């Protein structure tokens, strides 16, 4: 479970995140929906501990991320915006590197690696170097790396960006599986269908603020539109107006 209260992040005079508050519960899929530059990635970066907030608190499974950053980080698995694979390492080595950094012992790591290969259907690329991977294959390696330590909380930054239909389905499948296991899944997207198909609750972010939140149905009502996309445009549009 992730609890965020009054989160703020400024870059110089620009407030990228300006008072975000929300709770992402266990066994639920929470979507961060917003246009480009709304502050989604910055919010996630603070959640997974590579950026420090200027104000506000983050707690991961009850652990204060400001006080115990490493303990909080150990409880999240992340598919970042940029995967940053090492071209000269194989899929297996990528998983091993992150697993070892997470402190897994050899036996657990070996077992978990096989499990992930099975889950993500990536046995055929297990011992191939990343330099020649397709985008879908790279996503699988990055996902496997994120899940190697069985994190209770999974953060996905635009996970289906640029993926083909088959890979997108695979990602959705995994998100549903994680939810069924009772994990807290938080993912960001600017793609409406994605969010409405997967999420239990949606946070609409614009101008560094949460402008609306609720289930897809609730949001449709809130925006006064039958279509979620129209609702989104109405909601984020007013927010952008307010921010200026």
């Amino acid at each position, binding site marked *: 479970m992730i609890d965020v209260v009054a989160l703020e992040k400024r870059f110089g005079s620009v407030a990228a995140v300006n008072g975000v508050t929300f709770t992402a519960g266990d066994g639920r899929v929470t979507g961060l929906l917003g246009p480009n530059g709304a502050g989604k990635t910055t919010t996630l*970066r603070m959640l997974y501990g590579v950026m420090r907030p200027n104000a506000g608190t983050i707690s991961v499974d009850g652990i204060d991320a400001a006080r115990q950053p*490493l*303990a909080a980080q150990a*409880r999240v698995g992340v598919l970042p915006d940029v995967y940053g694979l090492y071209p000269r390492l194989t899929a297996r080595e990528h998983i091993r590197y992150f697993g070892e*950094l997470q*402190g897994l012992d050899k036996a657990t790591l070996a077992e978990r690696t096989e499990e992930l290969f099975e889950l993500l259907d990536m046995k055929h690329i297990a011992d191939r170097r990343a330099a020649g991977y397709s985008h879908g294959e790279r996503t699988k390696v990055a996902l496997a790396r994120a899940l190697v330590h069985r994190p209770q909380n999974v953060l996905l930054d635009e996970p289906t960006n640029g993926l083909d239909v088959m890979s997108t389905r695979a990602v959705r499948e995994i998100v549903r599986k994680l939810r069924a296991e009772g994990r807290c899944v938080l993912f960001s997207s600017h793609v409406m269908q994605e969010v409405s198909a997967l999420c239990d609750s949606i946070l609409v972010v614009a101008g560094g603020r949460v402008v609306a939140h609720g289930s897809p149905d609730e949001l449709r009502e809130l925006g006064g539109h039958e279509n979620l996309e129209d609702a989104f445009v109405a909601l984020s549009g007013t927010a952008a107006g307010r921010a200026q």
Partner: protein
Amino acid sequence: MRLPGAWRQAVVVLVKEFVDSCRDKRALVSVLLTVLIGPVITGFMMNRIADRQRAAEEVRIPIAGAQNAPALVEWLRQQSGVEVAPAPAAPELAVKSQDEYVVAIIPPDFAERFRASKPATIKLVADSARADTFPQVDRVRRLFAQYNAQIGSLRLVGRGVSPAVASPVVVQEVEVSTTQQRAARLLAVIPLMILLAAFTGAMQIATDSTAGERERGSLEALLINPVPRSALAVGKTMAAAVTAMIAVTLTAAICAALLRFIPLQEMGMRFRFGAQHFAGMIAAVLPMCLVTAAMQTCVATMARSFKEAQSYMGILILAPMLVGVLGTLYPIDNQPWMFGVPMLGQYVLLSSVLGGRAPSPLAFIGAAVSCVIVAMLLVRVTVALFRDERIIFGR
């Protein structure tokens, strides 16, 4: 959940960076080449000097018309290291085509003019454009001059004149650049090459694991893991240090092999390279690899891009060059404080070891301790950089 130990994580980072960079074939080859090329060139030059020295002592003089001056030819034969040979049919052609480096031609009227005490000509065919045979030609020239002086003195004595009258001025040459010194100067290059290896060896990992990591976008993914930034900085620095140590050991081993192979004795050097010298070289330089690795990792972390990092590396490598050049220009006398300065200390230690003067164990320990302290300070700076969001996200 148990958090993994920071040291263990540092080792994980070290191993990954090392494996990763070993797979970069092109970088590996370029490092190997830079490590190899210095010692190989030096060895080649040392060998040339030794060869030339040997060659100048033993000259072979093809003489055309030897029957015209049997006394001269007999005198030449009696000089040590001189071999008189029959001349080729076309002397000038033979020299031009480099079959012979010198041919002496004694014309038929030599005996007649010699007997009449008139200057008798000897033609010396040589190619002054060939620098490599200069010592031999010079020796031949000096041999004839020597004969000339001897006969001249004898004639003066025969006429009741002191030979001293004919030598109003005696030129005494003081040769500064003896073969011995030239060889010694080449030997002085070895410490510099070893210092350079400590830089070139660490360079690849230092840049690729910091500026390169950020440019690929893999730094953010790495920082998601529950790893203290200090473990990252230490792991990356140590990976660079390990490759620097490998490069240094390799360079030292090649230099050692060359020194055993080159006949130093023939160049008048009494130095005999042994295992204790090799051990001394390694003990002197390995601690410095920590400094070079830490320095390069720190600077490369500061750089905004891989290219920028590489250009900084080019500047950093001037430091050991400066020490080496100053060392050859101004012979450094061992002051105790020098051991405390990384690079300078190692240079002095290496020069002492190669000079056959073993420094005290205290000097080795002092130099190593100062290296460790400087490296630790540099790693601290790197850790601070890794904590800076502007550095991580390259703003």
